[in-house]
């Protein structure tokens, strides 16, 4: 009954298969909050949620997991509490740490897909490198103001080097992020995750979906993989 409204979109067999998958979500903020929520409601069997940050007031405009009552609490711990209330079948593990070169392989090993919900470039490249070593597809998403992009990166494709100029430099974000942009980008990332896991449909492998929500411009840019 819990998944009956998913069953016209996914077959009964596919719905069952989702329970066998293990997905890591790196970052539990704007993108991450929506990703965790949707993955749990879809019935992904095992989730690992990774973030060393705590909630503060500036998160309340967009981060689904943030509430006035949980300021100062670890985002990953809050995610676990919420998901346990939504879907107790999901095995969810909180990792209240920042992912870095020293812990990336250990944190991401044995997952079927990694969802990139980070807010800085350096750790995104660390995730891409770890996913390549571990043979795990990575769904990259990033946002700024009215703008978003998503790419599905298979091991060896190294699309981040195509998306960001090298040598990599961190980017500031003077546009900020309103509530709808992370919700939009996370939805695309979750659809990509499902297609990768279930081997269905067309994915953004080797491509970047670039979206301008202000002017309604949606481009799928082929990248050299």
């Amino acid at each position: 009954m819990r998944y009956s409204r998913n069953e016209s979109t996914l077959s009964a067999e596919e719905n069952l298969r989702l329970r066998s998958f293990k997905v890591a979500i790196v970052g539990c903020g704007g993108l991450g909050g929506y990703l965790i929520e949707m993955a749990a409601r879809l019935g992904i069997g095992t989730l690992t949620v990774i973030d060393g940050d705590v909630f503060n007031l500036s998160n309340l405009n967009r981060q689904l997991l943030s509430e006035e009552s949980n300021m100062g609490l670890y985002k990953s711990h809050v995610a676990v509490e919420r998901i346990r209330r939504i879907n107790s079948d999901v095995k969810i593990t909180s990792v209240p740490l920042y992912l870095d070169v020293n812990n990336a392989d250990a944190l991401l090993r044995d997952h079927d897909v990694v969802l990139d919900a980070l807010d800085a470039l350096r750790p995104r490249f660390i995730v891409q490198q770890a996913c390549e070593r571990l043979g795990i597809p990575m769904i990259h998403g990033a946002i700024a103001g009215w703008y978003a992009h998503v790419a599905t990166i298979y091991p060896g494709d190294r699309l981040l080097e195509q998306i960001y100029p090298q040598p990599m430099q961190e980017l500031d974000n003077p546009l900020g992020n309103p509530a709808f942009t992370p919700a939009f980008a996370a939805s695309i990332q979750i659809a990509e995750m499902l297609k990768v896991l279930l081997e269905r449909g067309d994915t953004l492998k080797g491509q970047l979906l670039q979206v301008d929500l202000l002017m309604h411009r949606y481009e799928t840019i082929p990248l050299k993989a």
Partner: protein
Amino acid sequence: MITVNGRTMAGLEQKSIEEVILLHYPYAKIYVKYNGRHVEPEEYPQLILAQGDQLQVIHLMAGG
């Protein structure tokens, strides 16, 4: 025809990269490749698009 972000677009011959960007890519920070070569902002006005050229314009963002 000119290919912009993988899509062929008519009417861009003889336009500079700067004109295309002003028209279609108002986003403040962009990463531009012209026929596969990364080009810097100071080159945008001088580079005039011709038949068969390929332009890639990627919005630079890292928010999450």
